[in-house]
């Protein structure tokens, strides 16, 4: 325990001591969010300036869903083309709209355009929230409730979740703060690799490795230091975007923080597995960076890429999961799905650690 603490505190100090690197550690992500966020918003997708997202819909005329979609809360986010089912599907297939909302026999489905990336997430979250309210409404109606009051309930429910957004002019930063911070945290595994390199693979590492500290204690201490350092780095960026730039992170901040923590842990675990497979930390850093970029881009939302059928699989990339949870939390997404996605993120982490443990053990006994 004492040597674990020694490794942990020293490695943490080592990370934070260098003033220039601390400045980079904190200033860089913030710069990235500001510069890239605004730049991308301008160049790639003007929809991020929160012009309502184009959506097609085929819904029952005069039904609850239509009322809901026509309400101010919905039209603030979506520009809805009410049309026939065929036309709605055509529009989404051609990519003219991000999603098509189809209602048939009371069943609501959302079809996502192939290259819609993050854009689809907001309409999907909104429809998710409708479905939840819809369920509540059905119960209320069957129990003899008043429809007009319930219609108000829909609006009320939505405006609760969307209210903070109404207080300021929304901009690209609200979106990029989320996606960039998730991406940045995914890269923090590199902090860990840097620590492993110094304490296990360099000449300093030779000295550490010849000391009577067991490898599991050493690895554990370094890992803890990297995780804490990375998460604190993320928190600083998070609170900076929140308080200085007024970025809207939704109402459920603990959930968002937990998600960010899961992403941090994922990155650390991922880094260890890559390191164990690559043998040299420099190679691992290269591979890690390449893989994180891939994960980031398949998650969508940064640039539009058409992945075809693979889109559904890419929803399970760690970035995508984190986006779903955080945007879902901000825009009233489906709670069950958010919880499932969060659980899935932690399962990823657990699986990676198990793999790391097995690989590490094999390495030690070799």
């Amino acid at each position, binding site marked *: 325990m*004492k*040597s674990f603490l*020694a*490794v942990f505190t*020293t490695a943490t*100090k*080592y990370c934070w*001591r*260098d003033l220039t690197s601390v400045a980079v550690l904190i200033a860089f992500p913030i710069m990235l969010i500001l510069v890239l966020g605004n730049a991308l918003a301008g160049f790639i997708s003007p929809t991020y300036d929160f012009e309502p997202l184009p959506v097609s819909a085929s819904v029952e005329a005069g039904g609850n869903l239509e009322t809901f979609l026509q309400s101010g809360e919905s039209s603030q986010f979506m520009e809805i083309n009410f049309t026939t089912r065929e036309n709605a599907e055509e529009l989404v297939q051609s990519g003219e709209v991000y999603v098509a909302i189809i209602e048939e026999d009371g069943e609501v489905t959302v079809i996502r355009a192939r290259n819609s990336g993050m854009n689809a997430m907001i309409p999907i979250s909104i429809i998710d929230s409708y479905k939840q309210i819809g369920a509540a409404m059905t119960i209320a109606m069957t129990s003899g409730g008043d429809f007009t009051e319930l219609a108000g309930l829909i609006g009320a429910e939505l405006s609760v979740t969307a209210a903070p957004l109404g207080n300021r002019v929304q901009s690209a930063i609200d979106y990029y703060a989320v996606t960039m911070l998730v991406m940045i945290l995914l890269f923090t595994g590199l902090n860990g690799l840097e620590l492993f390199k*110094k304490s296990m693979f*360099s*000449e*300093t*590492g*030779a*000295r*550490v*490795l*010849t*000391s*009577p*500290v*067991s*490898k599991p204690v050493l690895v554990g201490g370094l890992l803890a230091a990297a995780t804490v350092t990375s998460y604190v780095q993320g928190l600083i960026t998070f609170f900076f975007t929140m308080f200085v730039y007024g970025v809207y992170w939704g109402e459920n901040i603990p959930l968002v923080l937990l998600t960010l923590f899961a992403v941090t842990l994922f990155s650390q675990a991922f880094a260890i597995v890559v390191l164990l497979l690559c043998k040299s930390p420099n190679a691992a850093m290269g591979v890690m960076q390449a893989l994180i970029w891939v994960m980031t881009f398949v998650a969508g939302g940064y640039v539009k890429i058409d992945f075809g059928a693979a889109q559904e699989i890419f929803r399970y990339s760690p970035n995508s999961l984190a986006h779903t949870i955080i945007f879902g939390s901000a825009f009233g997404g489906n709670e069950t799905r958010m919880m499932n996605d969060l659980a899935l993120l932690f399962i990823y982490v657990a699986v990676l650690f198990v793999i790391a443990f097995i690989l590490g053990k094999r390495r*030690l*006994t070799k």
Partner: protein
Amino acid sequence: MILSMTDVIKRYRALTALDHLTLNLQKGEALGLLGPNGAGKTTAIRVLTGLTGADTGEIKLFGKEFSGKNNSDSMAIRKRIGLVPQDLALYETLSARENLEYFGKLYGVHGAELKKRVDAALEVLGLTDVAKKSPKKFSGGMKRRLNIGCAVIHKPELLILDEPTVGIDPQSRNHILDFVSEINKQGTTVLYTSHYMEEVERVCSRVCIMDAGRVIADGSVEEIAKSAIFEESITLEVKDPAPSLPESIKKIQGVVRCEVKNRAVTITSTAGSGNLPRIIEVASPFVILGVSAKRATLEDAFLALTGKSLRDGGEAS
């Protein structure tokens, strides 16, 4: 026996870095391990500290087989060893004191005892004034001193130093050599690798010369010098040497050659013949302006044994 490596082989692909290396070290000894670049000194140290596995051979430390594995036997052995790696092995963003403390803690020294030992080490190494500074701001010599300090906080019974004085000023070098001698006097067994004869002669009681992964000579400094040198040379500077002078010198027993070049009369005789007084006697009718005798040094022995100079591009004299 504190350390024994027997018949150790270590290959890196086609290259045999250690070729049936056998090396022993008694308690309290200071052994100098000399060898040219690439002789396998660092590899020997890596193998015997468990950083790299040997292909074959036996390694015993403190009388126990040492596998370098992550078990309690190995840990107990590791506790008794201090390693000063060839390159600087420090955390640059931590202060000198924090570096010393960290390595102390890794070896299980904590609390008040740790503070006491760190203070003492800073004092002995002359780093007290810069204890709070990071080694980034240190001179080469200060870094080297700290590099050694980090290996001795836990008071190892065996201290292994891999070229601890590379690239530093003479003062720091003296400081380090005195430090190592002192630690050895207090009972620490020392394994010291170097390119520098003078250092080994000063610090070590015994010398092993390594080349191409094996030990090619082992003994005291004098023994090695004697065994390896077959000839000694004496040069007289004589005013107007007559041709008869070399003739008479050549008659002295043990003299192999005598050459005259202007005023310089160079006499080569077999090692250990002790001919200097007789030569001077024979030359006494002449005006002797100067005498220079070159004692056999380890450097010569090294050259004779390996055909190589100790340092790349260094003068073999």
